[in-house]
């Protein structure tokens, strides 16, 4: 990771008009809209709500059972809908699922597909902007977490993380909380590796 700087809303990113996510162009110049890290023409927000996109794999919680399907809470202002036609299993309220967003329209009606019920475990509510760091480059961070704690970890794009399996779930959760607050720092994977090593049983 090269040197990046913290930018704030309205800060100039480029003197040219550029298409950068989370930025906007005015009078031929590009400005940031969020608090984020900017380096090499890439702007990564440090905070913010989850904006659902088609194709995202998300972790959701069934919030309502309807006649034709399920309402699913996915850590966004909008409730997603999972049609009964898409699935073979039956869910009840409070079940956690892993699913893909199959459609988002202009008024943010969200439909899910390819749902799968998650095994017994715990839900960690994080933020969507932290997920890239929790997964890491080429899954480096998440595979480190899984191998060190012995848990199965499902990280949804939306910021919800499901931890299951026989491993040390509390340790996995603590490690995720640390990644959250230090997401903007460098050399994080090494620090987390040291943390897990010093805290794992046996």
């Amino acid at each position, binding site marked *: 990771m090269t040197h990046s700087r913290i930018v704030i*809303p*309205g800060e100039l990113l480029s003197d040219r008009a550029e298409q950068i996510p989370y930025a*906007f162009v005015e009078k031929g110049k590009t400005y940031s809209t*969020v608090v984020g890290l900017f380096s090499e023409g890439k702007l990564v*927000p440090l905070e913010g709500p989850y904006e659902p996109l088609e194709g995202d794999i998300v972790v959701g919680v069934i919030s309502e059972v309807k006649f034709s399907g399920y309402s699913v809470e996915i850590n966004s202002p909008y409730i997603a809908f999972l049609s009964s036609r898409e699935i073979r299993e039956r869910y009840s309220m409070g079940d956690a699922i892993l699913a893909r967003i199959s459609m988002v329209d*202009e008024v943010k009606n969200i439909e899910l597909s390819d749902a799968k019920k998650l095994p017994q475990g715990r839900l960690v509510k994080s933020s969507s902007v932290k997920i890239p760091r929790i997964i890491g480059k080429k899954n480096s961070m998440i595979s480190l977490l899984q191998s060190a704690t012995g848990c199965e970890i499902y990280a949804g794009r939306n910021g919800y993380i499901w931890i299951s399996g026989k491993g040390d779930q509390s340790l996995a959760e603590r490690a995720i*909380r*640390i990644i959250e607050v230090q997401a903007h720092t460098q050399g994080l994977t090494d620090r987390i590796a040291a*943390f897990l090593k010093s805290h794992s049983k046996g």
Partner: protein
Amino acid sequence: MNGEVAKAPELYKDGRRLDGRALDELRPIKIEARVLNDADGSAYIEWGKNKILAGVYGPSECIPRHDQSLYRSVIRCRYNMAPFSGLEEHGKGGPSRRSKELSKVIKEAFENVIISENFPKTQIEIFVEVLQSDGGTRCAALTAAAVALADAGIPMKDLICAVAVGKIAGHMAVDPSKEEDNFGESDMPIAFSLRTGEILLFQMDGLLTKEELAKGFSLARAAAEKIHKIQVDAIKKVYTEPKEERLLLIK
């Protein structure tokens, strides 16, 4: 007050104001971002003797639904003064004509910069609580709310700030305190988007000549630059100098 009229203090003497400031000098300002655990974004500001908390929630589902817009997020603001925040009519607390007005002008200032089209059918709520007041609370509230919004990660076109200018004892002065506001001739709060130079809030009490207005304006603009810098520092500090309790997580 027994019907007595309070005697006006000498507001400007030997180049100094009541509290010893120069005409273009702000009161000391301290901003801290992310002070509340359960708000999406928050900020606390101490501006002279003003103490104000701002909390931001959202975007979340807009309730009641008939207020929803299919095109943008609805922005709401509640400015409220705590019952112990000050003396006289300002300190009564609860909804009043005054707090309604300030809620409205703060909301309208933010409607210009928040990119609300990204979140149809939702609401973004800004809550401002004045814990202690000493003149210029609307400017301080707006300044704190801007930091809270940025902290919440709500997309904005600029980080806005506000400052008042007043006319005291015949001189244009920046950031009037409560006494200067009460006994001065005029008070003029202005909110800026410094990136574009736009004015997002502009009110005036009392009378000013064209020249005085222009003078006050340039004073406010120069002060706003200083305030903006304090805002930016407050936001960056969340990441560069995280609070101890956040660091305790790693041990």
